[in-house]
């Protein structure tokens, strides 16, 4: 089946979202195609050929009923499909791995509760969130200041990071690799540059990474290389002279 422009997905739920997308697209192509054919037939066939006045018919009840009832049925079909995918996507099952994702102007902080590990980075430094493959990963999404958008294309998913709200969802990646993510909700001056990465690794690699990065010495080394901020949540601004208004 054609992709209709969407990404096939790298997580369990993004795959069902992709199939939902394909379903909707087939509906759109069939219905849209039908309308376009009618439309083109009408404008080609019924061009003015003289000064005739056509029959002044105004109603055709069976046709009107038909194009009211059929769309209602289509809509309920689309809604049913939506519910199935949506319920899976927001189910939020119990998980073993949790990542606290905190968005701020203009960067991301990924904390692994209980392990002493956290990764932080601003704008184009693109901090990396490491998660294990084939595992339900629980995300606690928050924001320190304004509204941000957590979005990874290959996950076919986005969610607002809202100040004062704890947004929770689950990711189960089905393949390893590094996926690019970006803030999608306008958050001020450096919105265009608020990057992050999600690196999906195998469980043993993940465990090893967690162990090494929670090591105080390694953490200190990481701090030196990634220009890590203190935990106040107030990042220093990038050294750029754009007006801040």
């Amino acid at each position, binding site marked *: 089946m054609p992709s209709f*422009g*969407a*990404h096939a997905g790298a997580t369990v739920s993004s795959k*069902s979202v992709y199939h*939902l997308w394909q379903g909707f697209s087939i*509906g*759109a192509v069939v219905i*849209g195609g039908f*309308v376009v054919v*009618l*439309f083109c037939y*009408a*404008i080609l066939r*019924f*061009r003015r050929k003289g000064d*005739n*006045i*056509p029959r*002044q*018919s*105004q*109603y*055709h*009840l069976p*046709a009107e009923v038909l*194009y*009211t009832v059929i*769309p*209602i049925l289509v*809509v309920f079909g*689309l*809604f049913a499909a*939506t*519910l199935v*995918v*949506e319920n899976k996507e927001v189910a939020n099952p119990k998980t073993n791995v949790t990542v606290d994702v905190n968005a701020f102007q203009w960067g991301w902080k990924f904390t692994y509760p209980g392990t002493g590990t956290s990764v932080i980075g601003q704008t184009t430094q693109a901090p990396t969130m490491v998660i294990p493959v084939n595992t339900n990963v629980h995300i606690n999404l928050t924001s320190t*200041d304004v*509204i941000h*958008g957590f*979005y990874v294309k290959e996950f*076919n998913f*986005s*969610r*607002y990071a*809202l100040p*004062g*709200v704890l*947004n*929770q969802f689950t990711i189960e990646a089905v393949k390893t690799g590094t996926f690019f993510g*970006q803030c999608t909700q*306008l958050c*001020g*001056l*450096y*919105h*265009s*540059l608020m990057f992050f990465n999600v690196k999906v690794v195998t469980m043993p690699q993940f465990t090893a990474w967690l162990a090494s990065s929670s090591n105080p010495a390694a953490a200190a080394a990481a701090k030196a290389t990634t220009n890590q901020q203190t935990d106040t949540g107030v990042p220093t601004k990038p050294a750029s002279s*754009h*007006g801040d*208004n």
Partner: protein
Amino acid sequence: MTDVLDPPVVLSGDGHSEHREEHHGPTGILKWLTTTDHKIIGLSYTVTSVIMLVIGGLFAEIIRAQLATPNGSLVSLAQYNELFTMHGSVMIYLFAGPFAFGGLANIIVPIQIGAPDMAFPRLNALSYWLYLMGAITMLMGFFTAGGAANFGWVAYAPLSNSINTPGAGADLWIGGLLLTGFSAIFTGVNLTATIFYLRAPGMTMFRMPIFTWNMLVTAILILLAFPVLTAGLIMLYCDRHFGTHIFSVAGGGVPVLWQHIFWFWGHPEVYILALPFFGMATEIIAVFSRKPVFGYKSMVFATLSIGALSLGVWAHHMFTTGVVLLPFFSIMSLLIAVPTGIKIFNWIGTMWRGEIWFSTAMLMALGFLFTFLIGGLTGVYLASPPLDFFTHDTYFVVAHFHSIVMALVLAGMGGLYYWGPKITGYMLNERLGKIQFWFLFIGTQVFTLPQYLLGLDGMPRRVAVYLHDPQWKTLNDWSTFGAVLVGISTIIFVVNVAVSWKKYPAGDNPWDAQTLEWFTTSPPPHHNFYRLPQIRSERPTWDYNHPEHRSLAHGGGTDEPPPLAAVLTAALEHGQDEDG
């Protein structure tokens, strides 16, 4: 009944359009400043809003030029945020709405229903001056030290608070929007009162032209939605300056509350913008197919359902907040596709077996229909929360609503070509009009279609640079090229107005049109009519000119409507006649 030529009712003078009653009043600039005539106010609205379209369009061209390269340096990041904020604000608050309900509706609705003026002429004048002052106030932001508002046209809290967006530009934005909001509310009051109380004898509700019907529903939506926005803006202003903490977490407030308030206005607003243009397209398609509007009653029903449903779908803009009930807002939003689909089929039904005259106005209306179909179909995706999750805040959404609003621009241009002769007394050049149409229509597709693909490939909205994905340049360049074509079409329009200036006299009814405004002179006299025809249907002018070609009843050939429809129609029209 159809054999008898109903004599028109003479209102003043000797009943001939040649005999023009002089109205003694100020002329020139003083006339423009002091008028309460709905036609002159409407024309002021139209001209002002088209200037806003040009200003908003210039912002769009700068935005597209910036995005022509991945690391564009035409404007700074800060200036870019101001540009897209003011582009959206100008187009939505200062162009689309005022053009439709302040401009064309203001001029056309009273004439379509046989009224001498709006119900409250002075309030009408106040509306225009509030709108003009609001527009100037909002644009003044560019001349403040901190620049214009830069938090997007939706002004989400807490980005719009005084800490994240200090400066006078944001306050001028709020002030300007309050003024134009009041202007919209007053116009809503005026249109509602005019349509309910000033219809000519015989003009029952179910004989109102579809444009008037759509304006009635629009006006009611304005009355329901705009006060909510006004209240929200006052809250926002208080948060910014008086420490009310309505939208700030630190003070115990709720940022998402702003989104609820904003979209409770904002989604009805989508239909406040769209319904007038649906009405324009309906009139144009019927006239240039030389047929009555197909499914007139289902058209009215569809408009009413769109109006009703539009009040229950606001949170589909907030699916990704994670704090709204998804299924309810999803099904309500999906259901809007049904009445919208009815409209599309009715438009095609109107053309079916007609004699289609491809005038500029008709081309614009057909361009509207096609573009609106694309925007409508992609809107259905966005009503499904899982699909919205991954397209939200990407260029897919940008493409979707630009398909819609560009469809409205096409219909609005059609409206200008169609009603311009009535308003001014002179036709626009058809050849230039058709060239303008092709630039506008092709430009629209070239600039929106690549944006759908960009959105699906993950390009977020409101980014000034796309450093990580420079491969998006190709599609962005196509989009920019399309925007240039649209810009050229606007220049052609301005040239056309200049070239056609007082050149081609229009006559009373150049299109062999159907509704009441084509019965009077072009331009209409001071109080619109010297005489009125008998009003027996929604097409009194057509009935007068073609008494042997009145609309056929249900079922077509026979005079006998099908049983169920006959009962309903008889009941409705009986009630209406008694009211009238």
